[in-house]
């Protein structure tokens, strides 16, 4: 393992280096995935571009919308007081990533770029209709997170392009989010299945006007259960409706079987956890 290490001190320099090295370079954020992949020989970048001296990438900005810089750590999300209300689901996703040490260094940007279908924070961001911003030699572009994620380990990022931020609108009105994870153990654990939900009720609190359900580890990428969302929208949030949504999500997902669980068991978890995540949202309206 031999590579050159760079520490750009500005966004412009980072983008410039990224463009120069293209596929031979890799940006280093928290390193909790990249270093492991390098050690195992899965990737062998000739240039490693640390982002830690680029100013502003670790900022959380709230200004009608939320902007998470790519270097915002899971710990920073956990501790952000503004996320305790309608964005509680985001905190719940961040606080089950790895263990304390990993959350202290692992970043939201790295979590997205790693493109693991089992990522814990990504489903929450998907449920928040997040967009991402990439900057490359040709300038800046914005994509939806959903279109950015292509397959396990692969995103729409172009060679040399730098993911700088994730954005989503601050939820308004009667909105709640929730996140649930099923794993074999309670820490340092890759999700067997994880579920994020966002629900918005009408002014009377009777009907669901908007629903988002996103699932991890049940498809090649973090996956929106649109059929389940449609079943909820425009309807009262009854236990039966939530169970129906769970069944629809279970029927629509495409899990694999591996050493952690069979595909069949993952479907059972989807069917069970989706209604529980929805019920958790509903409870937050009370």
């Amino acid at each position, binding site marked *: 393992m031999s590579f050159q290490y760079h520490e750009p001190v500005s966004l412009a320099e980072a983008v410039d280096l990224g463009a120069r090295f293209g596929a031979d370079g890799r940006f280093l954020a928290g390193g909790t995935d990249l270093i492991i992949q390098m050690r195992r020989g899965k990737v062998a970048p000739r240039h490693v571009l640390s982002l830690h001296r680029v100013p502003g990438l670790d900022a959380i900005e709230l200004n009608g919308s939320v902007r998470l810089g790519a270097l915002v750590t899971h710990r920073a999300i956990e501790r952000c007081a503004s996320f305790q209300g309608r964005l509680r689901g985001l905190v719940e996703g961040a606080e089950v990533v790895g263990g304390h040490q990993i959350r202290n260094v692992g970043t939201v940007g790295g979590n997205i770029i790693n493109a693991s279908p089992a990522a814990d924070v990504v489903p929450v961001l998907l449920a928040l209709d997040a967009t991402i911003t990439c900057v490359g030699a040709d300038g800046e572009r914005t994509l939806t997170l959903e279109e950015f994620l292509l397959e396990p380990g692969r995103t729409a990022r172009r060679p040399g392009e730098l993911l700088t931020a994730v954005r989503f609108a601050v939820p308004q009105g009667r909105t709640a989010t929730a996140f649930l994870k099923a794993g074999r*153990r309670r*820490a340092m654990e890759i999700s067997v299945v994880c579920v994020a939900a966002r629900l918005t009720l009408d002014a009377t609190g009777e009907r669901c006007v908007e629903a988002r359900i996103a699932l991890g580890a049940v498809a090649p990428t973090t996956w929106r259960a649109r059929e389940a969302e449609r079943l909820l929208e425009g309807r009262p949030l009854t236990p039966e409706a939530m169970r129906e949504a769970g069944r629809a999500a279970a029927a629509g997902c495409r899990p694999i079987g591996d050493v952690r*669980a069979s595909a*069949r068991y993952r479907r059972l978890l989807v069917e069970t956890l989706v209604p529980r995540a929805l019920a958790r949202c509903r409870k937050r309206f009370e």
Partner: protein
Amino acid sequence: MAEAVVLHPSLRLVGRPLPRHDARDKVAAATAYAADWGMPGMLQATVLRSPYASARIVKLDTGRAAAMPGVAAVLTAKDVPRNTLATDVPGQTTAVGPLRATLHVLATERVRHQGEPVALVAAETLEQARAAAEAIEVQYEPLPGVFDPEAALAPGAPRVHEAGNLLAHWRIARGDSAAAFARAAVIVEGEYTTQFVDAAYLEPESGVAWIDSDGVITIRVSTQVIEHFRDVAEVLQIPQNRVRVIGPYLGGGFGGKEDVTVEVYLGLLALRTGRPVKMVWTRQESLLARAKRHPYRMRYRTGASASGEIVAEQIDLLADAGAYAYLSALVLLYSTVTAAGPYRVPAVEVEARCAYTNNPPTSAMRGFGAMQTVFAYESQMDRIGRALGLDPVEIRRMNALRRGDSLPVGQVLETHVAMPELAERVWAALGPVRPARAAHVKVGRGLACNLQPYGRIVWLHDWSSAWVGFEMDGSLVVRCGVPDVGGGQASSLCQIAAEVLGVGLEQVSVHIGDSALTPLAGTTTASRQLYMSGNAVLKAARELRAQLLAVAAPMLGVKDSALDLLEGAVVADGGRSLPVPDVLRRCAREGVPRSHLAVYHAPAGEPVDLATGSGKVFPDYTFGAHAAEVEIDMETGAVRLVKYVAAHDVGRAINPQSVEGQIQGGAVQGLGGGLLEEVILEEGINLTTSFASYLIPTAADVPDVEALVVESGEGLGPFNARGIGEPPIGPPAAAVANAIADATGVRLTRLPLTPERLARALGLLGKAG
């Protein structure tokens, strides 16, 4: 959370929960573990391993690798003076014949398991060594393999070794079980399966070897057995007195460092290059290829009378020995002897076999074959209790062994058997039943008891030696070749010596684990070190005390029986005293030694024919009972441990803090094996070679383990202590399985007890699942 220990009024240090001298250094990262060692001019070494589970080596060419930059040596089997290692139990005098453990140092024409070492490389840097290992040209021709012991014993199965796949076979037949079964009111049959488990110590296999200035090959290595210096000598074909093994403090052993690991490779490379060499296995290597705990398939048929007395038991055990023998035959013997558990069973038949497969080798791991059987016999006991409407404590109380009873092998229990009080106490300690937190949650409780031998099999003639001596200033030195694996082995010896010789713990220095400079103490395995080396130190300290008092008596003008050693002084009745240094000076003048070397021999016996015999197999046993409370998510099968209590009769706790540590650590490791851990193999290929896929419990996964330290005052160790290293790992899996059955009515018979398995058993995954 041990309860208050009642101290013997005359004991000052023994029985007190004193902080261990090694604890602070470990917490402060000041302990120099094997991998922390470095020397000038040291080479770095690596092992090339087989990617195949079963293959013929068609071509092995090291030419290109040897010519690479920085490479000092590339070794293959042809460079190994003696490539087959037959390891008798070290230091023993009786040839154990079929128990001999064999392994190949490096693969010859065949590889028999994935990860089998094929070649060694030493180079200036680790990167160079790894690059050279990659450059070794090996051509394999894959061969058919066998991956299940049942299949391995079927006619026509591919042979792992030429002599056939049956490695060992033990049997016990006691009483007329056919007649007894005919009288039984209830018969319960069950088949139980356990998995491959890894020792998963924090510290991987590692060491440094060098040729010291005296020409002796010196190896500082993480090992439970410094007496492997003999094996190194054998492999290198040099005299045993030309090899020295130094064992620093370990970051865990759990049996995984009972067989040789890196020391033989280090010896070969140091001898070849003449330079210091370091080898540290990666976690992936350790998980891939190190010996695992044996998976067992256990068939039990248990008959009981209408009132609940067990009348007969038929037991059939089959273990996967993996690709090489290692200690499999001995592990199987432990299973055979303990197969009926801590219960009186008048008629017992046990058939136990283990077979070679092309899976990773299996060998010693904490519990050593007496652990897998607990899952089976305690599941059976629970089922019989349920069938007869008896609660878990009652069915065990009715059948518990007592002093004077004999085990199925015929060994009479001569010390106190703390059954059934241990079961009663842990069950009571669970406290009032709590209601379930949610509609989809059910709560259940389970109990499991066990017995575990401590000390080696009596016909292996076990011994340990220790040296205790005063320096002229009255400070004390203990020398004992014990490897300290983290259980407080060394510090307990200090406590014993300080107790007998009337000094404070801070006055004692202990030198351990050096095959050249410390008296040999045998292996830190088999829950034997406190028992064996504790007795050796006690004997040495008592002799030294007598020597000293005999010299002091005329100085004080009293009989030596009227003297005591207290706080660095010889004290007579009436308050007269002499500082110990004064007595030591007199000793020097009179030619009386100020030290003593003692050898402790365990009670020995002749080999027992298990099938017909009725004799002693182990010196003694430690008994235990654990109780668990679980919450079950009835919609997903998820199991949450809520409460856990573990009690063992340790005879006497020399250091209750260390005893609690052993009980808690053993329980957590047992819970890991019960709920999480599994080496998953597909046709011999290991799919769990990182801690992301081989899951050990984290602090978030287990509740506080409440340790009840019970002291019957009876045991064969110093101050009547019993061994406690292994016993606490036995009951957890069974306690949790019984708790799951209590909560759900569903019995799981395969370890680990995963949520998916429970979901399937609960019918949540449909019929075909």
